[in-house]
């Protein structure tokens, strides 16, 4: 039964997508919504049943479903195969449930859009691709989902394609992630060449048993890290995600917050066994993660576009996850992934409601005082913000972040034989990140909801949007309580779910305290800066002055890309805008023609011609004679004679 449910879970949204693509004209707006939500909902149902089935089994139980052999050539074989273990179970639950809620939300949100069917087709296709990604037991099969989500994200970012900026953003996203895809492909090739298969289990097994050389493991993991970074918009690929906010808000919620960008995290968590064998790569992941975390948080602090703030916060939170992965705390990363999915989806959806009611206004400085007009949404947003900020006890983010931070403290890097106790440093930076997170998100909260009302929000938030908001708000508040630090309460449902033993509490209790205080101080600072005197801060020209580097980051990155990649490519494109080979051919053709002309001239008697022209110039009035000098019969006869001479010469000469 379960073996049947897994493909079904994938198939439901896929079929929905195909229906929506092909029968767009024959479906009403309502019909479209029903099909889309039905597809995802069915899939969610399957997942829930699967969860129930799997949770009843021992934790080590893994369900394998081999559908068919994809290709087999030489010593290599790949399969279309799925597997369900606890990690993928977690992922499919998050994807389908959060995805389902977002679909329900989007039904209301996108109600009036003429291309609704295409929108939902892409959304459901995305869910399908994401499910393939998380369920695949073969890396090549995973790659289908990996590229599929990229494609869907491209389609959705550029959904409103009348604006060239949107399509440009879409392409930017695709290109940057495509670079990562190529890295992923290289990793696949490396592994496939080394082992002849791309089964995740066998890969990890082979690597652990030492069949795969160290070199290959390092290279492959490095490639995968590049791929994951591109997918998750980590440094140096961070540029695409903020631009990707050009898509409809549900898209942002679903793809660029909750699920797709976490694919990289999932991949690394899934292959944690492999990564454990490449400590250098892990260290790199951690360092890049923490850098991204701080950079993105700083950048978020100076943004004025609500969705961009959320986008940068996503990058920042993903930085947390990579930091955790880099230090081997993959369960922490997954936990944060889950809570992040909840609260980031909530934040985006709430932001979508706000934007919708504010008349598609996205600048936070132009929508003050919305709190009174839309209390429900405000509440949801605040719930999400506190979860994101990790306010102790009331935010899901607190628990997951706490799990990561407490895991960081003892972390050590084994680099080139040296044991580097990097944990405390990373911990400190992570804590700084937590402070910044609270600062920027509550900045947004205060600016948007406090103060005098500037805009007049119209209408009401419909129930179709409210219900998902409510559900997600609940999950954001309580979703984190499945796992708590021992200091608070010995609840370890999440680790148990993953089948791991609960972490041993080595760390001192003040770590937890520090982790709780950092966001609170951030909240306080935000209140001091923006809550009290919103006007002053708003008028301050360029918040960039606070953190100059951070303020210029996005622009600097874009400029850097421009300088390093785009400009040279453009120049190169300009240079070879014509087919060089064709050009050469053209030259050759002209030369041939020229030769032909010359021969013709020779035939007419070039010597005679030249001589004639000279004569014509030196002697007056004899144009006629000049023309007569055009050697004819004699010239031909001369050729004959010359030919005879040459022929005799070939004989006479040896």
């Amino acid at each position, binding site marked *: 039964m379960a073996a049947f449910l897994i493909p079904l879970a994938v198939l439901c949204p896929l079929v929905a997508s195909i229906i929506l693509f092909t029968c767009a004209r024959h479906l009403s707006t309502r019909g479209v919504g029903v099909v889309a939500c039905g597809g995802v909902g069915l899939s969610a149902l399957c997942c829930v049943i699967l969860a129930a089935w799997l949770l009843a089994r021992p934790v080590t139980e893994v369900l394998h479903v081999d559908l068919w052999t994809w290709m087999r050539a030489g010593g290599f074989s790949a399969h279309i195969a799925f597997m369900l273990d606890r990690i993928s179970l977690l992922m499919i639950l998050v994807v389908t449930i959060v995805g389902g809620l977002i679909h329900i939300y989007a039904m209301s949100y996108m109600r009036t859009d003429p291309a609704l069917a295409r929108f939902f087709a892409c959304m459901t296709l995305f869910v399908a691709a994401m499910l393939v990604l998380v369920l695949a037991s073969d890396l090549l099969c995973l790659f289908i989902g990996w590229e599929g989500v990229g494609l869907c994200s491209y389609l959705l970012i550029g959904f409103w394609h009348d604006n060239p900026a949107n399509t440009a953003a879409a392409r930017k996203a695709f290109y940057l992630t495509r670079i990562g895809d190529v890295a992923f492909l290289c990793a696949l090739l490396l592994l496939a060449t080394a082992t002849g298969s791309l089964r995740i289990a066998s890969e990890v097994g082979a690597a652990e048993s030492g069949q795969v050389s160290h070199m290959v493991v390092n290279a492959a993991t490095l490639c995968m890290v590049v791929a994951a970074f591109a997918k998750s918009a980590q440094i140096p690929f961070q540029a695409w995600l903020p631009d990707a906010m050009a898509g409809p808000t549900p898209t942002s919620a679903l793809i660029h917050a909750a699920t797709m960008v976490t694919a990289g995290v999932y991949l690394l968590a899934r292959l944690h066994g492999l990564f454990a064998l490449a400590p250098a790569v892990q260290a790199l992941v951690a360092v890049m993660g923490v850098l991204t975390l701080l950079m993105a948080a700083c950048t978020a602090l100076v943004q004025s576009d609500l969705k961009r703030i959320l986008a940068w916060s996503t990058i920042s939170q993903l930085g947390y996850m990579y930091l955790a992965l880099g230090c081997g705390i993959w369960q922490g990363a997954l936990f944060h992934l889950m809570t992040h999915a909840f609260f980031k989806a909530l934040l985006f959806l709430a932001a979508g409601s706000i934007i919708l009611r504010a008349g598609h206004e996205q600048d936070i400085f132009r929508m003050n005082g919305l709190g009174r007009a839309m209390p429900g949404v405000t509440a949801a947003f605040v719930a999400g913000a506190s979860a994101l900020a990790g306010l102790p006890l009331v935010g899901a983010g607190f628990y997951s972040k706490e799990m990561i931070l407490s895991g960081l403290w003892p972390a050590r890097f084994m680099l080139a034989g040296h044991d580097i106790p990097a944990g405390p440093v990373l911990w400190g930076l992570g804590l700084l990140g937590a402070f910044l997170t609270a600062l920027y998100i509550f900045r947004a909260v205060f600016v948007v909801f406090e103060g005098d009302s500037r805009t007049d929000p119209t209408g009401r938030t419909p129930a179709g949007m409210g219900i998902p908001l409510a559900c997600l708000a609940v999950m954001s508040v309580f979703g984190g309580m499945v796992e708590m630090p021992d200091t608070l309460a010995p609840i370890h449902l999440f680790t148990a779910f993953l089948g791991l033993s609960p972490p041993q509490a080595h760390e001192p209790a003040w770590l937890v305290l520090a982790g709780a205080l950092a966001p609170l101080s951030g909240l306080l600072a935000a209140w001091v800066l923006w809550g009290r005197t919103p006007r002053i801060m708003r008028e301050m020209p360029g918040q960039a002055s606070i953190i100059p580097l951070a303020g210029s980051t996005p622009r600097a990155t874009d400029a850097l890309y421009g300088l390093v990649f785009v400009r040279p490519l453009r120049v190169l494109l300009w240079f070879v805008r014509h087919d060089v080979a064709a050009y050469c051919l053209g030259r050759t053709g002209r030369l041939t023609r020229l030769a*032909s002309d010359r021969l013709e001239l020779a035939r007419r008697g070039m010597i005679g011609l030249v001589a004639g022209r000279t004569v014509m110039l030196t002697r007056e009035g004899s144009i006629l004679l000049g023309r007569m000098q055009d050697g004819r*019969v004699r010239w031909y006869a001369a050729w004959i004679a010359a030919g005879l001479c040459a*022929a005799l010469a*070939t004989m006479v000469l040896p």
Partner: protein
Amino acid sequence: MIMHDLFLPTPLPLLSCGIAIMLGSIAWRRSIRRNLSIGLVTLLLALVSVGSHIGAAPVDGAALFLQDRWAVYTAGLVGFSALCILLMSWRDMSGPRADTGTGPHIGMRTDPRTDPSIGAPNATLNATPAGASSGTLDSTSIGDEYSLLVLLGTLGAFAMVYAANFMPFFLGLEILGISLPGLIAYRQGHAMQACEAAMKYLILSGVSSAILLFGIGLAYAATGSLRFGLPVAGNGIPPLVAMAATVMILAGMFFKLSAVPFHMWLPDVMQGAPVPVAAFMAVVSKIAIFSSLVRYFSMGHAPPFLDTLLYGVIVLTILVGNLLALRQTSLTRLMACSSIAHMGYLLIAFYSPGPLQPGTLGAYLAAYTASTLGVFAAINAFATPDGTDGTTILDWKGLFFSRPFLATAMALMLLSLAGIPPGIGFFAKFEIMATGMDHHRGLLLLVLVAGSIMGLYYYLNIIRLMMVPPSLPAIRRGPGASPELTALIIVLSMIVVVGGLFPAFIIHPLFPAYQPGPPPAAVPTQRLTPESM
């Protein structure tokens, strides 16, 4: 008296009789149609009898004439070509033109604007005595020597083909060469051009004849014999004399073959000549001289001292011929240049003696003959009485839509010349390459490839032009060609296609090397020794 030791291939007396009868007929009463008919019948008889002879072949081989397989084959081609050419000119020579009033025209352009000599055609017509039929033809007065000259030229060609002695070879060559100025001058409407072409031909062929004669003289001086073949210096004569003789004879032959650098005359003369006469020059005289060339070197076994010369001439001929053809705007000129190039290809085969060679030469000559004749027949059919002359390439624009049959036939011929299936030219070129490959003539074959690519360009350029859709929506279907021309074109097309699809069928009866069975074992393996690899 000495008939018993005469050896004479039948076509020669047949043609002579035909000429005599024709002279008689002219003396009795002038009629172009009758003359043409006599000519056709004579040529048909000659064609049928190419393989037979009068008298017994002398055993010692010291005859004036000789009739081996090669001679019979090329004589057949010559006869066939002459027949076709006479047929081609039937309409122009004998058609009733009372309605057009332009007189006989062979590939003529009667555009009064461009031609000063057309000033008083009617006066000319009226001045001539009334002819046979309706009294308006001047064809009786102008055209009656035409068939006579064609027959004379053919006689010369036959004499060359069968010659086993320098004397008949030289006489045949000259008969052919002297008939041609007369034939060239048949181009009405372009009298100056025709005259000029005749003058050029006469002077240049005179020079080449002198060179040839001097060469023959040297050969005779070296050997004391006029036997047609490579001279071997006799007693007391340094071998250099024989070599010089060979070179000079070769130069004379190359002139007639229009191999570079002796090629200059051909484009001018062919452009100035009427279309059928141009065909005559391109086909009959070239086949005859090529046949003699092969005979002279006893199937192409050229002595080594000629290697440089032959290499140079072949390379130059192919390249220059094709390069010249690239720029031509006149179709006859283009055909002249392309025929130069084809001679170059043929020379490759000539230069590669061996088991493959006879088949190759036969195939290529047949392909060249059929395709070239086809092209010229199409040009002739294209020329209509109302003034369009097919000799400018641009005239052919859009022909596919106005006269599809003619255009298809023309395209077929051109494709065959370019060496593209299904024409016979494809197989012929293939054979040339096979032969050359057998001899490791790598350089020559590369030149051949280069030349073929250029050739492709200009042949296909014509096809391309024919396919340019006409600018006018109303498609004017031109008057159909006359029946004999249509039949001729159909026959030639059939030969081209059938020969291309079943080459063995065409060549098999002519060459023993082409008999079915496993030939490789039977083939002399002189070239299979390891050191030749």
